[in-house]
């Protein structure tokens, strides 16, 4: 097996992983900044309902 090909594949996957991590952190920060307060009762009511749809 050609070593350079393996290096290329690992490099590409590492780069893709880094990009994914970067965007993931970005989304998490955005979610934190634009957080909307949701009434906790809404979730409790939804939990009690049947929830087929």
């Amino acid at each position, binding site marked *: 097996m050609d070593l350079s090909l393996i290096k*290329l*594949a690992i*490099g*590409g*996957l590492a*780069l*893709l992983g880094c*990009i*994914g991590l970067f*965007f993931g952190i970005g*989304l998490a920060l*955005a*979610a934190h900044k*634009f*957080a*909307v307060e949701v009434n906790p009762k809404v979730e409790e009511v939804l939990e009690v309902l049947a929830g087929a749809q």
Partner: protein
Amino acid sequence: MGGMNHNKFPAFGIALLAILLLTAGCEPQSRFVKKTAFKGSHDIIITFAAPVDAAWATDTAHYRVYEKPDPDIRLEVASSSLSKNGHEVRLHFQEELNQDQPHMVTVKNIMSGGKSLGTTVVKVKKLYLSFLFSILIGAMLIQNFVFTKYLGLCVFFGTSQKKSTAVGMGITFTIVMVFSAMMSWALYQFVLKPYHLDYLQIIVFIGLVSLSVQAVDTVLRKVNPLLFKAFGVYLVLVIANCIIMAVPLILADNEYNAWESLMLSLGAGLGFLVALFLMSSVRERLELANVPRTYRGLPIAFVVAGLFALAFLGFSGMSIF
């Protein structure tokens, strides 16, 4: 702080656009040949920096013209004429020129004021901006993704009941479209291609689309809750929209550059906006119309969409410039 950013961003965009306008279409030409252009369907105009000799300019043996992809096929110059001030040579061809291809013109032994200035090769091509514009209009009307390719119908029928929702959806869609298409273009050109990961393109593109949809979802929930409520489930459905998946794949397939990608994605988004607007205008009226009971709701909407598709068929085969 936020206000300052808002002011800076358009200024930056305008500066970028100005740079594009200045650089687009500029090809390094010979120093003595100032400009080359197609004129009409049969002529090429070459503009020189100084007057050239009439006896030299009107001899067609001094010009060799071919289309860039086929250097072996010489195009016959029927006649050449010089303008009054001696700056412009007009080459006339018997056959119509295919202006979609750049043409190479070899100008032999240029004579100006009795002196020879050597041989030069110049390129003649259509203005680049008009090519970009034709991509935009092509994606928007001639090859409208909804009406001629039947893509993205789920969101199209889901959010076209009310005009305000439809326009909001169209604008959001355009933003998501441009955002994700540009990101996927960059990722394809600079990561996937150099690392030979082309086979991962669909997975990567889906990830990017869901990223931008999630971002819009998060921001819109806070900024405009009313519109967010009106979109309902369809905002999330944008992830699975065929148009938003098709455009990055088309970009990767055609090897478009950044500006062409921007134009195609913008055209696809605006085309979807146009389609949604047209459809919602009709459907608002259909609410009041006396539609037979079996056709009420979605069935008549499909019939209307079919009629729109027929109307858009009128654009097919059209080419701009």
